[in-house]
């Protein structure tokens, strides 16, 4: 039995310690917005935040997490999809199939949390998730747009 703090709520999960966080989220906690894409930390579809850092949940054994570790999934990023990244994604109409977008959004949100105004090179370095549909150009546009939305909010 492990205690996990997911989206601000502490939950007991009864799983083997080597179970990846991804599968605990999907199969025990019931949050399916975090996706399985590769299982080897290559594609980033499973990206979540752990204590504010973006991490690939397919490669985090649940036993390595403490009850005090704050895990945030796409479902808990912001109420009613109001995070600047989500609003920018909607404005730019980024997703195609959408399957990788939870991970892309979590990666972008983490980037903007530590770098309010990322350059193209910063985005290249931070946004390494795979999108087979090829929404990359719109992802870049939307990350810049989210930075502007955040600035406008700060001014208001």
């Amino acid at each position, binding site marked *: 039995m492990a205690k996990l703090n997911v989206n601000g709520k502490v939950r007991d999960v009864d799983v*083997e310690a080597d*179970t*990846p966080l991804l*599968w605990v989220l*999907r*199969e*025990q906690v*019931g*949050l*399916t*917005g*975090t*996706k*399985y*894409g*590769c*299982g*080897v930390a*290559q*594609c980033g*579809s499973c990206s979540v935040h752990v204590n504010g850092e973006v991490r690939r949940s397919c490669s985090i054994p649940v036993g390595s997490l403490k009850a005090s570790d704050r895990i945030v*999934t*796409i*479902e808990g*990023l912001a109420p*009613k*999809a109001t995070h600047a990244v*989500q609003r920018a*994604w*909607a404005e730019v*109409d*980024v*997703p*195609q*199939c*959408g*399957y*990788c*977008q*939870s991970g892309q*959004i979590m990666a972008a949100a983490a980037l903007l949390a530590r770098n309010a105004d990322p350059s193209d090179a910063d*985005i*290249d*370095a931070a*946004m*390494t*998730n*795979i*999108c*087979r*549909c*090829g*929404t*990359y*150009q*719109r*992802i*870049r546009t939307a990350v810049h747009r989210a930075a502007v939305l955040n600035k406008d909010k700060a001014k208001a």
Partner: protein
Amino acid sequence: MKKTSSTPNLSRRQFIVGSAAAGGGLALGLHVPFGLAQDARTAAPAEINLWVAIRPDDTCLIRIARAEMGQGTLTGLAQLVAEELECDWSKVATEPITPGRNLASKRAWGEMGTGGSRGIRTSQDYVRQGGAAARMMLLQAAADEWKVPVGELSVDKGVITHAGSGRKTTYGKVASAAARLTPPDLKSIKLKDARQWKIAGQPLHRLDTADKLDGSKVYSIDVQLPGMLNAAIKQCPVFGGKLVSYDESKIAGRRGVKGVVKVDASSVAVVADTWWRAKTALDALPIVWDEGPGATASSAQIAEHLKGGLTAANAFALRNEGDALKAIEGAPKKVEAVYSTPFLAHATMEPMNCTARVTKDRAEAWVPTQNAEASLAALSEEAGIPLAQCEVNRTDLGCGFGRRGGNQDYTRQAAAIAKQFPGVAVKLIWSREEDIQHDFYRPISQCKLAAGLDEQGNLTGMHIRISGQSINAFVNPASIADGKDKRQLQGMWEEPGDAQLGYTFPNFLLEYAMRNTHVPVGPWRGVNTNQNGVYMECFMDEVAKAAGKDPLEFRRSLMAKHPKHLAVLNAAAEKAGWGTPLPEGRFRGIAQFMGYYSYSAAVAEVSVSPKGELKVHRMVLALNCGHAVNPHMIAAQVEGSVALGLSATLYGENTVDKGRIVQSNFHDYQSVRLADMPKIETVLVQSLDFWGGVGEPTICVVAPSVMNAVHAATGKPVRSLPLKNVKLV
């Protein structure tokens, strides 16, 4: 948290209403725009016709028979119906048609298969008629109520007005009366001229974005049903091999494991309470395979086999105009080259999966499918339940790329597993490793080209011989005889329309030598236009260079009889500034090709560092797809085709060793990432005299334009893919 589990035994219609009424957010697959009240979502709509149902609050529910996998067909089809319906776009919602429903209605919704870039171009006429017929019935209902001639009514955004009396009503108010009227005769329906479009043709946002932003969208892999079990599968690593035995005792007593199942002759699955427990138990299960005759195959052997086809005495000549061999033989200057392209896996982001539940008289599946009717057939056949007692619940796909069409291998497997757990829903999920190693790959091929030039550098003859695997020989052998497979020569056909070669060669011999392997093959976004575009367009640059001519000018001189091809090529060249100076170290490459009734051209700008590192800086793509239903989404498809096309150009290959695919995941089957992407510009060349595809056409010009730019940069032609294997300097 959205669940699909609350109403498992209800019909589809009850299911949608029921799950929305349960307050679980948007119902599975039903996309309702923001701002609608909850009761509006649950009010029973009036069925105007197959395509349109209208709720009292004026919500227009548009039925979609084709699959949505990111390509935007759902929104595009809704735009076409809404255009003729004259409804309020902000009140449009969509609903997928299930194959069971289509079958029960004698396929009233037509073909559901979504491949070959057909989603819009082959259903645009009847869906527009559906929208127009619904509009006519709604207006007639208002005219009947007001007892005025229907010709005196007008409609705008779902509001019907009688100018004479000043009366107004809305679609929602007359919908139930309209639903009782006799539909108009098809012949009386006059569709709008595209020049008058207000909703179609506009760069509208997609209808299906909202639930992709907060994790609430339910893909098939996310489906949860009461008491559901999960299955992980292993298939014989060598294609054509068989399952001999497995030692179940080695995983006995593992937590959550419910059983080990022989799925079919070549695969075994572990079923457990969770997928992770099933997968880890499967990894621990000792399995004995009979790898069969394919076990000795290697990429080197396959390459030799194909090489033989390049010079074999017998080949299928699709085009033989004039005497190409003689013209080339007698030419003062000859150019020759041999090109090759590898097998490629699709690697859809959502891995193969299917949830199935089989009882003694009913079978149901939840599956990401490009061909829901093929899924239904596979389910019925495997479960041994008549078609009429089967249903496939549709979910949008996490990518398709051609992997999830007619070959419903994963649906079949899920049904075979579920059959052994009667009444229990079982979700089969493939690991990424299974996905990369058990695909229906883009076929491998080689191409030998020869051209003759006269003293002035004019082309006198062209000989193209492609040797490689045939998709039809694998999926539909009855459709070809003696290797006469025209499809493998896609993009080089003589007849106009679908996939016509844009050049006129004075003497031309075009041949195909079928050389099959034990590796399963299938359509991969763009299918054979990918490989054939590389062969034709990279060789054109080699010939132009030998002739001492500019690659664009050389092409133009052969395109006088193909004005649509030429217009697209010119549009790309103009937007890219072909012939204008570039920054130091940058070089351009150009290509044009055709598939799926649409014309494509591209100009790539690249640089190659002294160490041989390639950077693609900018790509301009021009497309003429005839009617452009949504320019915003067309540009997205062009951008997507650049990404998948660049993945194939730079990194993509599946090699064979000991009969199996060597690559297993994204670490060795690489995709482009954001940092690899050039700036992409899309130029739409619109003609209103045809309907072409969008999802696939532009991918075929990505690789050759980049390869031609590399040729310009290094002075050496590149003749094999992927470029990661080629020493550029």
